């Protein structure tokens, strides 16, 4: 079912408008405290906002116009057809796995045998029919979360809300769970809050980045993460993001702290705002200017060298580079002084900076 939401929480300065098309999965990403979980709670009917309006498949979930008045409408959670899958499975501890999954159909008025029939079908769908007689306390975290998925789907929701469904899982079971979600979310209207770019890529048709109570970026996962518009999205995608304006074949960063020389195909007019994204792994660091003058390069102070798994991250205010331990050892003396960061033009993405609402115009 198609879903639309307009939300305004004055005291927290949140103003969000979003829509989910029929069968679409929308991922919401944002820093902690951006109000993502509150957003899901509001849609599920567990948290009441100041003003706003939401509609699901032609049914108004809530309509709270500014200034209150008599036109207020607030549909209780059990009449919304919206299921919420949280980080924790929250299976009812006193019911068997089968009865947990049968809870939704039973509440919708199905007979006990019919509800169990539906539950069995969904347990099979998540490959957990062999667990049906167990108690939740006898399940592992991954098993419990799979049952929770079956339980949420068995209630036949018009919209499925997922609040970081993989965050509490062991990394060894998360991939299987992600595949399961990909399978069941296809052709289903869903909203998923996540911190994980991989979740967004594998599960979502569209991504929304929320920062400071506003939508700062929106588009397909490839749009948002290949050409990030916000430092947050760039960080999630693991990219250096440089923004500034074009001056000839250089990019001068916003505070004029650095100049990136030898831009590949700027594609914007002189003086126009420009963004450049490049992977730290593609960037080299040297104490002397790069030997190859064709490389794109920028001179900046090396702040420090921090180990990251099998490579070392060389950081500056402008951008970061991943170097080998051997190179890092050579750079150690240069910490605190300016060095050269350089990369091949082909490894960077350069694109015009457009502020917000990328898809609303398209």
């Amino acid at each position, binding site marked *: 079912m198609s879903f639309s939401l307009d939300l305004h929480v004055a005291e927290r300065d949140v103003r969000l408008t979003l829509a989910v098309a029929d069968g679409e999965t929308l991922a919401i990403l944002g820093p902690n405290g951006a109000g993502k979980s509150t957003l899901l709670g509001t849609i599920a009917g567990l948290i009441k906002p100041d003003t706003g309006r939401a509609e699901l498949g032609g049914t108004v979930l809530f309509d709270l116009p500014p200034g209150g008045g008599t036109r207020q409408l607030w549909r209780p959670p*059990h009449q919304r057809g919206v299921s919420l899958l949280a980080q924790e499975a929250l299976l009812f*501890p006193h019911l068997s796995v089968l009865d947990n999954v049968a809870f939704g159909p039973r509440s919708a008025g199905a007979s006990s045998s019919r509800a169990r029939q539906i539950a069995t079908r969904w347990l099979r769908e998540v490959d957990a029919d062999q667990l049906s007689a167990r108690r939740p306390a006898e399940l592992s975290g991954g098993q419990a979360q799979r049952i929770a998925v079956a339980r949420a789907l068995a209630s036949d929701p018009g919209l499925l809300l997922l609040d970081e469904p993989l965050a509490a899982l062991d990394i060894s079971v998360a991939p299987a769970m992600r595949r399961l979600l990909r399978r069941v979310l296809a052709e289903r209207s869903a909203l998923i809050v996540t911190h994980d770019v991989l979740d967004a890529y594998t599960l979502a048709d569209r991504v929304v980045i929320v920062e400071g109570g506003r939508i700062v970026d929106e588009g397909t996962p490839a749009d948002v993460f290949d050409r990030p518009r916000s430092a947050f999205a760039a960080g999630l995608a693991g990219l250096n993001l440089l923004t500034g304006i074009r001056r000839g074949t250089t990019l001068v960063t916003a505070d004029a702290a650095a100049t990136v020389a030898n831009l590949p195909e700027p594609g914007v007019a002189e003086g126009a705002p420009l963004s450049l994204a490049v992977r730290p792994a593609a960037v080299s660091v040297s104490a002397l200017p790069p030997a190859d003058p064709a490389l794109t390069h920028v001179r900046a102070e090396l702040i420090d060298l921090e180990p990251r798994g099998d490579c070392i991250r060389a950081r500056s205010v402008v951008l970061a580079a991943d170097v080998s331990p051997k190179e890092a050892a050579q750079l150690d003396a240069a910490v605190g002084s300016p060095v050269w960061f350089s990369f091949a033009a082909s490894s960077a993405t350069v694109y015009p900076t457009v502020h917000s609402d990328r898809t609303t115009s398209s």
Partner: protein
Amino acid sequence: MRPSPTSYSGVPRWVLAIAAIGAAFVLLPLLAMVLRVNWAEFVPLISSESSVAALLLSLRTSLAATALCVIFGVPMALVLARTDFWGQKVLRSLVLLPLVLPPVVGGIALLYTFGRRGLLGQTFELLGIEIAFSTTAVVIAQTFVALPFLVLSLEGALRTVGSRYEAVGATLGASPTTVLRRITLPLVLPAVLSGAVLSFARALGEFGATLTFAGSLQGTTRTLPLEIYLQRETDPDTAVALSLVLVVVAIVIVSLAHRTGVPSRRRTRVLS
């Protein structure tokens, strides 16, 4: 539960000594009473007509009071634990007042509520119902003093369980009544049972409010504690024998409450 022999307990010896004195303080009077029991006459003493009447009346009224405590206490605990309204804290303290009030004071308050010239007494009299000095009065007095026990223990359990399961139930399409019936009550059932057992125990031991509000009429309002108090003057042997009966009933109740009140390990793990 016995700690494993290797675990470090860390309780100083002088603490153990003081604890032993405290335990003796509780157990010695019981022992003194048991030693004073006239065992040869024990069965005839507790099976006299007045004793049996008092015992049966006590059990009957206490069960009725426990039922009333559950009927009114469960909704009260739910409202206190799950809703948020102005003056809730004050209301909670007032509801729990009978816990700390001298029972005699409770009896007087009840008398001026349900008594012949009380607040509601005249209304009941018009309907042809006379409450004061009847078995109904005994049940009311017992409910009055026992209700806070159930409300208190159940409210605590409801807060511990939290409302997250209830929220999940609601998003799965369950109406508030269905959520209450299929999620909330099953989750706090151990607390309802232990609260009911505690209320029953309190009702069984009720003395002051009953005497003040219901009087002491054999077979109608003279419950076991009243009978014991009465016999103490004339027939100490009967008083001691009946006291022992109450002690045994109390021990059975405490062990029952302990068993239902302590959730099984599995349940604890799930809820934590």
